[in-house]
């Protein structure tokens, strides 16, 4: 027990340390922000506490302790005939006859089950409550076990995908993004994509709505709405009137011959007029209220830096480039993991909660009453002890 308490304390201290020092950053982050302590941080692995050897050692010892505690508790409860054992106990509270009757009535009022052995009455209630601490320890042990197992199995990938495009994973699974919006029809923020997942065996979800807190899953895959981004959009029309639409990012070069065309520098949220002239606004919030395209016009071996706004058109090399409104695209997280493992993890957490509920709300009661008095045994029915003490002491006072 002492060992378990010490281990819990050490575990708490180590986890606290991990929250005080930012974890898993670049080495330079620690050099800049902890100029006097960074050597110690690197030496003891304090930049990755939750995967450091000492943390894993503490968790392992804690799990061993939990295992032993679970076994001890199981052996203590299983096969133990509480009623027979209680019948051997001596009474330790000895009020007068009226007090004993009051106590006995108290047990009956609290719906205790009575077993008569000789001249002794054994009152019991919530016998299942004795399993509570065993269930708690087993629940924690299984939760930690499945959690650690779960850490080693999932495959996680973050991708950006433009509406109308799809991503094909290594095993042939295809995730298609049909559309993305950041507001619902009432103008409320609601990051939502319409996606389709198709597995290599041909099974598919069909077009499903994906939003924050509502991932879409199929087989071992689950897709999450994580972030979003904004990209430029340019329509290009040739002399015959054929039109194509391109979603562009920085450094994209739109050209038919590789020489004449436009080289995208960047897309900015807007322009700002200052005393020093016009400057480009850098996106902080992620919104693009007055988008500005900055690009290089490449023609005849020369290049000129230019700005364009949505709706502007430019002709070069026999093509017409029309700058459209930017498009928003989703940042998706794709996770592949065992669904069975997740259910086991959830089940073990529920076992832990059941154990706590049983321990705290179904305190086992076992009381022995005979002609001399009564005693409370088994579990720790402190509430009963207090109530009975008050009841019988009052009786004594009256007597």
């Amino acid at each position: 027990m002492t060992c378990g308490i010490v281990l819990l304390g050490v575990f708490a201290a180590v986890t606290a340390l991990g929250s005080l020092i930012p974890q898993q950053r670049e080495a330079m982050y620690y050099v800049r922000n902890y100029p006097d302590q960074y050597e110690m941080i690197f030496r003891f692995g304090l930049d990755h506490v939750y995967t450091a050897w000492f943390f894993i050692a503490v968790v392992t010892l804690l799990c061993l302790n939990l295992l032993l505690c679970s076994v001890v508790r199981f052996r203590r409860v299983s096969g133990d005939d509480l009623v027979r054992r209680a019948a051997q106990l001596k009474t330790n509270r000895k009020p007068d006859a009226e007090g004993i009757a009051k106590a006995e009535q108290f047990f009956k009022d609290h719906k205790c089950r009575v077993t008569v052995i000789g001249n002794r009455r054994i009152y019991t209630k919530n016998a299942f409550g004795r399993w509570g601490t065993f269930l708690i320890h087993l629940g924690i042990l299984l939760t930690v076990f499945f959690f650690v197992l779960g850490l080693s199995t999932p495959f996680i990938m973050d991708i950006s995908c433009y509406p109308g495009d799809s991503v094909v994973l290594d095993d042939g699974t295809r995730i298609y993004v049909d559309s993305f919006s950041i507001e619902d029809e009432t103008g409320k923020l609601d990051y939502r994509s319409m996606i389709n997942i198709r597995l290599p065996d041909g099974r598919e979800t069909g077009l499903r709505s994906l939003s924050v807190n509502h991932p879409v899953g199929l087989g071992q895959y689950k897709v999450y709405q994580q972030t979003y981004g904004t990209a430029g959009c340019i329509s290009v029309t040739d002399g015959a009137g054929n039109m194509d639409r391109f979603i562009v990012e920085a450094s994209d070069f739109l050209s038919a011959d590789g020489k004449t065309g436009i080289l995208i520098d960047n897309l900015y949220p807007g322009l700002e007029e200052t005393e020093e002239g016009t400057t480009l606004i850098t996106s902080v919030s992620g919104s693009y209220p007055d988008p500005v395209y900055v690009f290089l016009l490449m023609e005849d071996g020369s290049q000129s830096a230019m700005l364009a706004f949505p709706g502007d058109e430019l002709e070069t090399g026999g093509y017409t480039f029309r700058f459209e409104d930017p498009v928003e695209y989703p940042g998706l997280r794709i996770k592949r993991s065992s669904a069975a493992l997740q259910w086991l993890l959830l089940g073990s957490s529920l076992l832990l909660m059941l154990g706590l509920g049983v321990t705290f709300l179904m305190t086992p009661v076992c009381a022995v009453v005979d002609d001399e008095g009564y005693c409370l045994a088994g579990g720790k029915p402190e509430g009963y002890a207090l109530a009975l003490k008050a009841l019988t002491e009052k009786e004594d006072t009256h007597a």
Partner: protein
Amino acid sequence: MLDILFFGGIGFYFAAVLMQSFAQVWKKEGLGATAWIVFLAGFVLQSGYIVLRGIQAGRIPMANQFEFATMFSWGIAVILVLLHYRTGLPWITLFAMIMCWAVYLYAALLPREIHELMPALRSVWFVSHIGSAAFSYASFMLAGAAGLRYIALYGKNKEDSRLEEIDYFIYRLISIGLLLLTVTIVIGAVWAEEAWSSFWTWDPKEVWALITWILYAISLHLRLNRKKRGLFMAWYAVLSVPIVLFTFIGVNTLMSGLHSYGAIIPFLI
């Protein structure tokens, strides 16, 4: 109207604290009874404020630090009222009233604007996760209040018959708080998997909720298995309160993480 209910609630709670203090110092039972009625009036105003704010916001008001603090304070008041009428034990009242008022006063220091619920918080787990957290913190605070009362009584008379009773209630409040905190953590893990793809991310809020859980788990081990109770457990309950407050306030104000929705100034993404 909202401001009247809000500041009215704080005012009534403060008046109840003052009256209850005088009642206990001068042993005036009548004043104590009046203090309780004033406290109940404050509770009604606070409940009204929460309901009205919820109607105006179109959701349960628990989406940022201010709303959580209000709910936390209300949780203390709810448990105190339940304890008062179920057990008829007045010994916890003064310290609990002070805690209820202090947390509500802290809420008054925060921005009160109603914001639209951000997408990340629109989940079926929202109410159960945050609600159980508010009530678990409230239970721990009341355990601390009971601990203070125990220490005060123990200082006057080590044989006081009420000590055993208070000690038992410290244990019960901690066990209820621990059960609710477990619910908070487990539901939070399920929600995290839905929102961020991982049950556990070692986010500062998660870490400190776990530390709080361990702290109270140790206290129950000490009590149930090492027979540490009485004055030791009263001090333990009192000294654990700063950790609960750090998990609630300190983490949100001093550390950044995935739980920044609870930060003082809510931001949208």
